């Protein structure tokens, strides 16, 4: 059963394109990644799903209900963490969470306490005195307290430290084990890789690719940068899987897809000043990995 069904969803802000003909399905119990650079249309898609904005064209269904007509019924079983978290500064954390739970007609007190303990959040603190990271924790807790069937997360980890991020991923996996479907939007490929089953990639308002996560992982790209005093030339790096090779004085950088041991063997004899192996940013992924799809 599909929890989310989006068909040809289009949103124009006047003459500016937000998203165009976006189509995808999210299955029940799935963790679905939605990835793209800033301004690609991730938030526009999410806001349309939540009926915050109205589509110019196309349809979106959640729980088989139309998001523009039956949003009130849909939102009863949806938890939403916005990309930017803003709450009422005059409230304490507990007041905000109680206010949030009052919309669901459920006793959420136990869950509030559990989640506040997990994220080490002081419930009596005033919202205005919270750091951005702590406000984000409030955002995550308010999305979970009513035990939703679907979680819609718009860049949920921005502002969280790595330790809390890990706790958050564990919590998502736990919720997913209980049957919660998760729609996870991010511009960080590595975090989507960590937890998602499937991923849709959006760029310039259009879905470029929808793939199983395992397929993306097998095509794992790395960005490698070598700083050395040893003189090297391009021929030394004539290896299958290397793309975008740039040699600039003592610095060599390239994108690599393939067995990482081959590269390690190649550079083990070079005297290094510095070496970095990182995930390429999305633009680079789009340029190299998806060029064949265009």
């Amino acid at each position, binding site marked *: 059963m599909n929890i989310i069904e989006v068909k040809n969803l289009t949103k124009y*802000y006047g003459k500016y394109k937000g998203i165009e003909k976006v189509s995808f399905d999210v299955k029940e119990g799935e963790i679905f990644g939605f990835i793209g650079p800033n301004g690609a249309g991730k938030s526009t898609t999410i*806001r349309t799903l*939540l*009926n*915050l*904005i*109205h589509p110019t064209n196309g349809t979106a269904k959640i729980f088989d209900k139309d998001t523009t007509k039956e949003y*009130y*019924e*849909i*939102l*009863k079983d*949806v938890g*939403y963490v*916005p990309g*930017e978290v*803003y*709450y*009422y*500064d*005059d409230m304490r954390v507990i007041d905000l969470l109680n*206010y*949030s739970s*009052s*919309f*669901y007609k459920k006793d959420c007190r136990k869950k509030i306490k559990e989640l506040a303990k997990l994220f080490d959040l002081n419930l009596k603190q005033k919202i205005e005195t919270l750091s951005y990271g702590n406000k984000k924790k409030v955002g995550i807790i*308010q999305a979970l307290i009513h035990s939703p069937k679907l979680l819609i997360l718009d860049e949920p980890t921005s502002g969280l430290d790595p330790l809390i991020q890990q706790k958050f991923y564990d919590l998502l996996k736990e919720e997913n084990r209980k049957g919660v479907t998760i729609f996870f939007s991010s511009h960080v490929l590595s975090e989507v890789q960590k937890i998602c089953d499937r991923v849709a990639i959006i760029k310039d308002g259009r879905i470029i690719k929808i793939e199983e996560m395992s397929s993306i992982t097998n095509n794992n790209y790395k960005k490698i940068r070598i700083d050395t005093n040893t003189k090297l030339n391009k021929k030394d790096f004539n290896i299958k899987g290397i793309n975008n090779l740039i040699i600039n004085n003592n610095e060599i950088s390239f994108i690599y897809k393939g067995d990482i041991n081959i590269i390690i063997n190649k550079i083990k004899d070079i005297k290094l000043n510095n070496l970095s192996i990182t995930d390429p940013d999305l633009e680079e992924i789009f340029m190299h990995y998806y060029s064949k799809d265009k």
Partner: protein
Amino acid sequence: MNILRRELKVNFKYTLIWTCVILSIALLTISFYPLIKNDIAEFQDIMKNFPTQVQAIFNLEMLKINNILGYYISFPIRFITLCMMIYSMILGINIISKEKRLKTLDFIYSKPITRFKLFNIKIVSALLLTTISNIILFFLIYFILIGFDNNVNMYTYSLINFSIYLISILYISLGLIISFVIKNVKNNITISLAIVIGLNSLAVFMDEKVRFCLPLRYFDMNYIYDNKKYELKYLILCISLTICFYIISNIIHKNKDIL
């Protein structure tokens, strides 16, 4: 109920402050009554020397300051109505623009409540607050007036003050429209002041023919004082405009993108 409780709690303090301010203005302006009453002939002579526009501001052509209610409709009511207009418009504008300023629209609109219900609960809260304010002012100003002169006709006084209430509601509905028309309402007091004072200035200087578009003149205090009733067509106009603004704002709100 949760939204209503929250709205009332947040705005009650401001309502009390505004009510106290309006009450102070009423007390201050009414307290001039004994001084003016003693020198009424001299005062009227002085006022007659002012240009006709100034006389119009104070409604001098029908000046009835020989009794407290006549004085009340000539001077204090001008300031009370002006303040109520500004406050009511702020209440109307705040219904949506306050959440927009606080950037809490995402939070409230992603909760399981219909847009219609959310919007109208907030409107009810604004109506309740302005009702509370008007009731407090109704009784306390009445006590102030009878403190100066026992001869206050309760029926006429009620008609006069109920007209302020009707104007308050009209300005709440006008505020709703303004909050959608003007993008990025950052300073609602400035906008309210500009619109209210602008409309009121026009009301003084514009011709009788365009009275229908000047809310300040929908309720002619001298007419109410003399005839103990409202001018029916302007009463209907006031109520119709209020309903019209309310319906339009609901339609805009239903279709509005929350950005």
